[in-house]
C-alpha cells in the first residue's frame, strides 16, 4: 500500500518505545533442553538477556554419594544423553586414575571406537537440531537416519540404544561382539556420506548462510576467558583439543586433524562439527586396524572386576567375590583426582574424591555445556531475537549435564 506521507523521514515515523520484556522458555517448543531466557528487546534486537538454567537439575552429584562407585555409570549416561559412551569412558578414566589402574590395550581401543561413534552421533544430532531450527528439515531427517545406524551398532554392542551404562571401572561390561569390526566399517561410510549430503544442502545455501554467518560471533579471548572448550572454542580458531593436548587412552597413536573456524559464529560451529565427524571416522578406521582381536577387556583384579556369572552360581569363591564387589562396592583408595576427556561438547571433567570406602565421597562433573551456556547471554546480546534459537542450537546445550 501507499506510504501515508512520502515527505516524512523514517526517523520521524519511529515512535519512542520502552524495551520489551520477554520470557523464552522454560517450555519453549524450540528450546530442546529446558532453559529459560529472560530477554529485553528494543524492537527485534536483544539488549539484555538473562539465561536461567536448572530446570533439569536432577541431583546427579548427590545421588552419586549414595550408591557405590560402579552405580554412578547409569547417572553419567544420562548426563549427556546424546553421547553417553563418552561420559562412561570419561568417568571410568577418572576413577581409574584414582585407583592407578590401566585397562588392557584392547579395551582402550574399544573405548576409543565406541567413544568416537558416540561423538559422531552427538554432532549429527546437534547439527540436525540447529538446521531444523532454521527451517531446514531435510538434513534433520537424513541425519537422524544416520544416527539410527550408530544406535543400531550400539544396541548390538551394549544392548541399549541410548543409555548404555557400558563402562566399568577397570574395563567394559562386555568384550566386543564377533562382527564388531566389520559392522562398524559397514556403517561408517554411510554415516559420513549422509553427514556430507546434509551439509551440502546447507553450506552454500544463501538463506542458511545469511542466517548464520557472522551471527553470534565470539572472540578467542572471550571464549577462553569463559572457559569454553570443544567445537565452540575451536570455531573461534583456537586449535585446542584434549585428545591432542593431553592425549588419553591411545589417542596419541592415531593421526587426525583438529578442525578450526575463524569467525566463531554459528556457521563455523556447525562446520567444525561437520568436519569432526570426518575426523572421528578417520580415528575409528585407524583404531579398527590397530585393535587386537584377542586379549582381555578387563583388568585382572578380583577386587575390581566381577567374576563370570557361571562361576558365581557354582562356587563359593566366586560368590564371595561377587558379594564383595556388589554389596560393599569396590574400594577406591582415599584421595582425589580430576580426570578430563574431550567429550562432544568439550572438556568433560570428573573430579572424584574418595575416603577409601566403597561409596564415592564426592563426584563432581564438569560439564562442557555449563561453561558454554554461561557465555550464551553475552553471545545473544545485540542479536536479533530470531537468532537466539539457532545460536542456542549451535551451543548444543545438553540439559542433563548442564543442569547436573
Amino acid at each position, binding site marked *: 500500500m501507499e506510504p501515508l506521507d512520502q515527505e516524512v523521514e523514517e526517523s520521524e515515523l519511529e515512535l519512542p518505545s520502552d524495551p520489551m520484556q520477554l520470557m523464552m522458555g522454560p517450555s519453549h517448543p524450540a528450546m530442546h533442553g529446558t532453559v529459560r531466557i529472560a530477554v529485553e528487546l528494543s524492537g527485534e534486537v536483544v539488549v539484555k538477556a538473562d539465561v536461567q538454567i536448572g530446570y533439569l537439575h536432577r541431583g546427579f552429584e548427590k545421588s552419586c554419594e549414595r550408591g557405590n562407585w560402579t552405580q554412578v555409570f547409569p547417572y553419567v549416561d544420562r548426563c549427556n544423553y546424546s553421547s553417553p559412551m563418552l561420559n562412561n569412558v570419561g568417568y571410568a578414566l577418572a576413577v581409574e586414575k584414582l585407583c592407578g589402574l590401566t585397562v588392557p590395550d584392547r579395551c582402550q581401543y574399544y573405548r576409543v571406537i565406541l567413544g568416537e561413534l558416540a561423538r559422531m552421533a552427538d554432532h549429527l544430532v546437534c547439527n540436525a537440531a540447529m538446521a531444523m531450527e532454521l527451517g531446514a528439515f531435510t538434513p534433520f531427517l537424513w541425519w537422524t537416519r544416520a544416527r539410527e545406524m550408530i544406535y543400531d551398532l550400539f544396541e548390538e554392542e551394549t544392548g541399549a540404544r541410548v543409555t548404555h551404562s557400558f563402562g566399568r571401572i577397570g574395563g567394559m561390561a562386555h568384550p566386543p561382539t564377533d562382527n564388531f569390526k566389520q559392522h562398524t566399517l559397514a556403517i561408517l561410510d554411510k554415516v559420513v556420506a549422509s553427514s556430507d549430503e546434509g551439509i551440502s544442502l546447507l553450506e552454500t545455501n544463501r538463506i542458511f548462510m545469511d542466517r548464520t554467518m557472522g551471527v553470534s560471533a565470539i572472540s578467542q579471548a572471550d571464549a577462553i576467558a569463559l572457559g569454553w572448550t570443544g567445537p565452540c572454542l575451536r570455531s573461534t580458531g583456537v586449535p585446542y583439543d584434549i585428545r591432542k593436548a593431553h592425549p588419553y587412552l591411545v589417542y596419541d597413536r592415531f593421526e587426525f586433524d583438529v578442525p578450526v573456524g575463524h569467525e566463531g559464529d554459528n556457521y563455523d560451529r556447525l562446520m567444525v562439527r561437520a568436519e569432526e565427524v570426518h575426523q572421528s571416522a578417520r580415528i575409528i578406521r585407524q583404531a579398527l586396524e590397530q585393535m587386537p582381536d584377542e586379549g582381555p577387556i578387563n583388568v585382572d583384579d578380583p577386587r575390581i572386576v566381577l567374576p563370570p556369572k557361571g562361576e558365581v552360581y557354582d*562356587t*563359593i*569363591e*566366586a560368590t564371595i*567375590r561377587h558379594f564383595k564387589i556388589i554389596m*560393599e562396592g569396590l574400594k577406591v583408595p582415599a584421595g582425589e583426582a580430576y580426570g578430563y576427556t574431550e567429550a562432544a561438547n568439550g572438556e568433560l571433567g570428573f573430579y572424584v574424591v574418595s575416603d577409601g570406602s566403597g561409596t564415592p565421597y564426592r563426584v563432581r562433573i564438569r560439564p562442557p555445556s555449563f561453561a558454554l551456556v554461561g557465555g550464551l547471554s553475552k553471545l545473544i546480546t545485540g542479536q536479533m531475537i530470531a537468532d537466539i534459537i539457532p545460536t542456542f542450537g549451535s551451543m548444543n546445550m545438553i540439559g542433563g549435564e548442564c543442569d547436573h
Partner: protein
Amino acid sequence: MPTFKIDGKDVPFEKGDTILRAALRAGIDIPYYCWHPGLSIAANCRMCLVEILPPPGRPPMLLDVLELDREKSAYVNVKKPKLQPACQVPAGENMEVLSDTSEHVLRARHSVQEFLLLNHPVDCPICDQAGECKLQDYWLEHMKTKKRMRDEPVHKPKAVSFGPTIVYDAERCIICTRCVRFCKEVVKDPVLTVRERGNVNEIAVSPGRELDHAYTFMTEHVCPVGALTTKDFRFKARVWFLRSAKSICQGCATGCNAYLDYDPRYQRAYRYRPRDNEKVNQHWMCDEGMLSYKLAHDDRITLARIGGKQAKLAKAVSKAAELLKDGPTDQTAILLSAQHSNEDNFALVSLAKALGIKAMFLTGKADGEGDDILRHVDKNPNTAGVKLVAAKAVGSFDDLVKGIEAGTVKHVVALGSAVPVEDADSTLKQLTTLVVVGSSSSSLSRNADVFLPACTWAEAHGVYVNAKGMGQQSLRAIAPADDAQPGWKLVADLAEALGQKFAWSKLKELRAVMPAVKEPEPEKPEDEPAENADASAES
C-alpha cells in the same frame, strides 16, 4: 615396655601377651577365626600362622615337605620353616616374627582359607552372616583365587534347631569351637560340643539338652561365619543395609554397651550387638538384653492423647498445663522413671523445683532374676541415675500408692511407661490429674488424662547410669516416630505452658546444668583388642 619385631616393625608388648594380642593392639592385622579376646586359646583354625625366626645362633625349625615341581612334573623334597599360631605363642623380648612379608605365611593363609571354603555351600545369598562374614573378608584379603576342587562337597545337616533361639547350619561351620568354649567358659554350662572328625565333624548339643541358657545369643555373636543364626534375626534384614548406633542396653541395671543396628530406610531397629567394654560387659550380653531392642517399637504410643483420645501435641501440652495449674502443689507429686535417661528425669525434677512440688516418687519395672555374669536383678537401666538427678530421697512406687490411697496425692506428673506392680489401674483411677510423659502403653498411659509421646532411648541421645554408678551415653539411632519428642523437651514445653521458663532449651545446655555423672567409659578398653573393631568404626 619390652618390644619385639613383626615384619621389622617394633611392637611393644606386656608380659604374657601373645603375638596376636600385641599385634592387634599395635594395629597390625593378623587374620584369625578361632581366637576371641574373651575366650581361651584353641589355636585350631590355623589362620593366624606366622613365621618366627630362630634366635641368633640357633638353627631354624624346618619341616620336610613334598612340593610339586612343575618343570619336572614330579614331587620333590623341600624344607619349609615350621609356622606357629600367633594367637598361642607368647611374645618374647627381641623376637623376630614374619607375617605379611613371609611367602610361607601368605601361602599358609591362602591354603587354610582354601580348605575352609572347600566344602562351603554357595549360601551367601541366603546367609544372614553375608556382609559381616570373616570367610568373605579373608577370601578377598588372603586368597583371591578360584575354586580348584571339582568334587561334590561334603553335605551336612542344615537348619538344625539348637534350642528356642539358635539355628545351626553344619555346612557353613568351620569348627572354630568359639561357641563351645563360650558355653563352657563364660556361661559355665557346657551344652555344646564337637562331634565326629575331619570334614564331617560338626557342633552338637549334648544329649537330652537344648541350647537354652541365658546367653544363647552370644553363641551366634561369637560365630565368625554363618553357622549359628538367631531365630530372631534370621531372614529379617541384610546387614549391609543396616547402620549401627552406640547404644546402652535397656534390659537391666548393668547397662551393657551395645550397638543398635537399624535400617535407615524404614527407621526400624533390628538387633543388638554387644560393644566391647571391659569395665561393664567385656564382650557379652544376655538374651534378655539382646531382645530388648524390641522396646523401640513394641506397643508404642507416638501421638499425644487427651483422656484417651488422640490430639495435637501442642493442644495436649496446654491441656496438661491447665489441668495442673489449679492443683495445689502440696497435693501434686512427680513420678520419675528408672526407664528414662538422666535428661528426662532431670527435666521433670527441675519442673518440680520450679513449681515447688516436694513429693517425688520412682517407678520402673519390677525386679527380675539375676546372675553373677551380667544380669542384674534391677531390670531398669537408670535407677542410679534417677537417684542422682533427684538429689534427694525419692519415694518408691508403693509410697505413691499409699499416698494416693490416703488422699494426700491428687495430681501426678509421671514419666515413663512401666510400673513395678501387676495392676495399678485401680489406684491411678483415683487421681484427679494424671499427666504422663511416656513412650509405650501401660497402666500409666491407660489412666492418663493427658499423654505426651516421648522418644524411646533409641530415638534420642541420653545418659544412663548403671548399677556401678557409671554414666554412659546412648546415642540416637532412628528418627522419632510421628509426634514423639525427647522427654526432656516435652517437660520443658509443659513448664513453659505453666509459665515456668527453664534456663536451657538445647541438649548441650541441659547437660551443662545437669548433675555431673562419671564420664562415659571409652567404648574400647585399652588393654583389649576389640573383637568387632570394624563395627566400632561403623557408628
